[in-house]
């Protein structure tokens, strides 16, 4: 079994799975139950001057039969007295000395920061996470994402924290910014050894169409909140890997956050540079018990890849994350449909017709019917191969027209039967590897059909 333990800029944790600072880490009894279930660490619900929360607080984005694809919340930081939280943190750390316990902090003034850092560290916690991410409620008071969106302020407060803290400081970043590198670099300039991202995405989840009030509803009103859950994972992966690549930030440890629901998600974050991962929505949906699968799944995955430690996985995919201009224009794929598993639903056909390149034909139609369907290129031969699946009587395997197929993956993505449509590599049309940046360097970055003014400018610009 692979070693899952990590050293996160000095913070030791038996595994990379931490509860994010959120309702699942709201109290001592909760965190202790989580540690008993197997979680390696927890970032406590953000401490500060206690708030008053509203009712209701959450709303979810469902998709089809999938509940809570995304979750929105308008809850603020902890509403419990500071001394209660600190006492419980002390008790947790005493009972679970080898687990990672991080205090999440959000206060206003330098004096506030000085006081809360001292009091938090007195609990014996292993590190501090400065919450510069919360995009609702607190930011209007000059905290949370109001800090995360102002690199200078972020840098300043980071410096204060680095001055007062005896334990590692993690800067939690908001995604509600134009370029994540700016706050990330500010955190690095301030001397922080680590960042965590992303906090929630500023959002308005939906509207109650009978009351004309957005959700979640507080009486006859609502407000914007923070969006999280599986839906935000791609945004989180992007932003996190930006910092993992950035020469000015890549020395910092990263705690990945955003839609992580299982070991596979965690492995993806780790492969793009995360040392630990933080989870909230999936626990709010299914409970602490999901960590069993996360530990087992990640461990087995690492074993299957011959990796002895999770540290070997870290950053493995960063190198392959390139700029668009460095992608190989000669790389070529064509869709292929497996006649043994196709059920003849023709979803690939409609997706390709209306959303891609009109290259999937339904056999059995006349030439005129193919034209009417919208095909502009009709192959000479459209073989009528029956769908083999039992009961699929009278249906034919859709036919890929390689002339029109651009290998976009859409049919592969919409096909409901996994493994039925595969994308197969075929020889490229250029004949050798070539990138757009190569063409730019050689002055060949002008395609036929360009604007007259672009052509003229280029002609004038040439020596």
């Amino acid at each position: 079994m692979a070693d899952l333990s990590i050293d996160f800029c000095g913070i030791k944790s038996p595994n990379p799975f931490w509860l994010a600072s959120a309702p699942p880490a709201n109290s001592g009894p909760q965190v202790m139950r989580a540690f008993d279930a197997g979680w390696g660490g927890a970032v406590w619900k953000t401490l500060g001057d206690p708030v008053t929360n509203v009712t209701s607080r959450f709303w979810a984005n469902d998709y089809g039969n999938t509940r809570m694809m995304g979750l929105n919340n308008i809850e603020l930081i902890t509403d419990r007295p500071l001394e209660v939280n600190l006492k419980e943190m002390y008790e947790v750390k005493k009972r679970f000395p080898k687990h990672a316990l991080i205090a999440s902090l959000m206060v206003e003034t330098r004096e506030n920061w000085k006081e809360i850092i001292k009091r938090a560290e007195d609990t014996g916690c292993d590190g501090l996470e400065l919450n510069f991410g919360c995009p609702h409620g607190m930011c209007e008071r000059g905290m949370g994402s109001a800090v995360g969106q102002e690199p200078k302020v972020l840098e300043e407060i980071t410096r204060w924290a680095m001055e007062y803290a005896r334990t590692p400081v993690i800067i939690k970043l908001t995604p509600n910014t134009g370029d994540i590198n700016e706050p990330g670099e500010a955190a690095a300039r301030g001397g922080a050894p680590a960042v965590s991202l992303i906090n929630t995405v500023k959002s308005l989840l939906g509207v109650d169409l009978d009351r004309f009030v957005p959700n979640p509803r507080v009486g006859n009103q609502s407000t914007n909140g923070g969006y999280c859950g599986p839906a935000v994972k791609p945004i989180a992966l992007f932003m996190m890997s930006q910092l993992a690549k950035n020469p000015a930030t890549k020395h910092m440890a990263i705690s990945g956050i955003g839609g992580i629901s299982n070991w596979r998600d965690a492995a993806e974050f780790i492969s793009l540079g995360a040392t630990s991962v933080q989870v909230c929505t999936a626990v709010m949906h299914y409970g602490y018990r999901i960590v069993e699968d996360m530990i087992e799944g990640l461990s087995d995955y690492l074993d299957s890849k011959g990796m002895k430690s999770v540290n070997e996985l870290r950053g493995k995919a960063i190198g392959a994350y390139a700029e668009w201009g460095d992608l190989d224009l000669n790389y070529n794929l064509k869709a292929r449909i497996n006649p043994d598993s196709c059920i003849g639903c023709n979803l690939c056909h409609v997706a390709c017709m209306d959303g891609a390149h009109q290259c999937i034909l339904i056999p059995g139609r006349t030439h005129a019917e193919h034209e009417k369907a919208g095909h502009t290129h009709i192959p000479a031969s459209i073989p009528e191969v029956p769908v083999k699946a039992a009961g699929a009587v009278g249906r034919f395997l859709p036919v890929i027209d390689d002339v029109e197929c651009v290998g976009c993956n859409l049919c592969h993505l919409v096909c409901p039967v996994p493994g039925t449509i595969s994308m197969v590599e075929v020889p490229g049309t250029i004949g050798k590897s070539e990138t757009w940046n190569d063409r730019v360097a050689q002055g060949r970055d002008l395609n036929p059909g360009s604007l007259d003014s672009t052509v003229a400018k280029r002609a004038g610009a040439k020596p």
Partner: protein
Amino acid sequence: MHPLTVLPSGRLEQQFDDKKPRYTAAEAITEANRCIYCVDAPCIKACPTTIDIPTFIHKISTENVKGAARTILAENILGASCARVCPVEELCAGACVYNAWGREPIAIGRLQRFATEATLEKAPLSSLLPAKKPATGKKVALVGSGPASIAAAGLLALEGVQSVIFEKRAIPGGLNTLGIAPYKQSGQAALDELHQVLALGGIELRTGVEVVAGAAGAGQVSSDTLLKDFDGVFLGLGLGPDSKLGVPGEQGAGVYGAVDLIERIKAEPGLKLAGSRAFVIGGGNTALDIAHELRLLGFQDVALVYRREEKDMSGYAHELAHAREDGARLLENRVVTEVLRDAKGALTGVKLARAKDGKALAGTEETVAVDLIAVAIGQSVATGVAKAFAGVQLDAKGRVVVDPKTHRTGNPKVWSGGDCVNGGKEVVNGVQEAKLAVKDMLSALGGK
């Protein structure tokens, strides 16, 4: 307008639970979300009325339930009945691509039921169909009030063609009212739908009026009168009485024709069926229905007596499976050769012979005690009325001969559809045949 037909209470039918009750909204949306929204979907091709099933299911998934009902009713004006009574296992759901994937097919019938019932209880049928066209001044007579005639009347009404439905019975609706297994659809549900069609306007229902050849007596109307007074005639005659076994002792108490017995279970208040052992003779869907019904009514031992093997039965395999689940049993290769009665004429049992290839084997008879016998070996054809219309041809089996594309008979003013043409199929077939007939009627009447 014809007064609302309300069946009296105290019917045995009311003792049955719905086998596939209407989904709740949450159930419907969850099931609708399973549908993968195929293109050129096989379910559409398998539906005799070609309802755009993936589209109506998609609409349910977005909670556009009224839109779903519109999509259904646009192709099948009796979509509510068909949702309850269609053998979807043999039609749309049987063609679902999920079957090919080894998964439970989409519950299309139940989704259709949800969409139509949930909508029609709030909105009149007319609000879900295209606006009625101006009156054409044309008038069509419909003979029989089964689903084919009701569908035709509704479609004609939308086209501005008036119609009069002649029904010889007091209760309208034909087999859709009186012949559907009660655990699928109650007679009242069929009547409620019929009334929604009548409410489209321009449709007159005359019950208790028989169409006859030659001079008409009381409660009758002559076929010549219909040909003279109307621009067109649609024959939706259905089938005739139950066929008889033709064995000694058949006449008398305790032996019922299956169709007649089902009708009485559905419509006769206070009907009592005594005993614990029932024999149902036949291998078709009517036999399966009455066997299933008798078992659910409390008969301890219900045996389907069929002269051939299970594989030869014309009844649907899924209906046999359901009847068996509820405790009915199948006796293959058996023939009743005589019905036995005591001195007072009361039914005591039967002589039951083993059979090979459907024929009784001599010397194999045994005596079996039985309390009730339902004979479900087919129905006679209603040839008399059809023959009253000059030019209307019947085939060797007594079915009305029509052009399958237009459903016009040999008499250019007479169209026909439903069981009297197809020999006894589903409600949905009757609706589709009515659609074809109405389309042709409209062009013949100069409607368009």
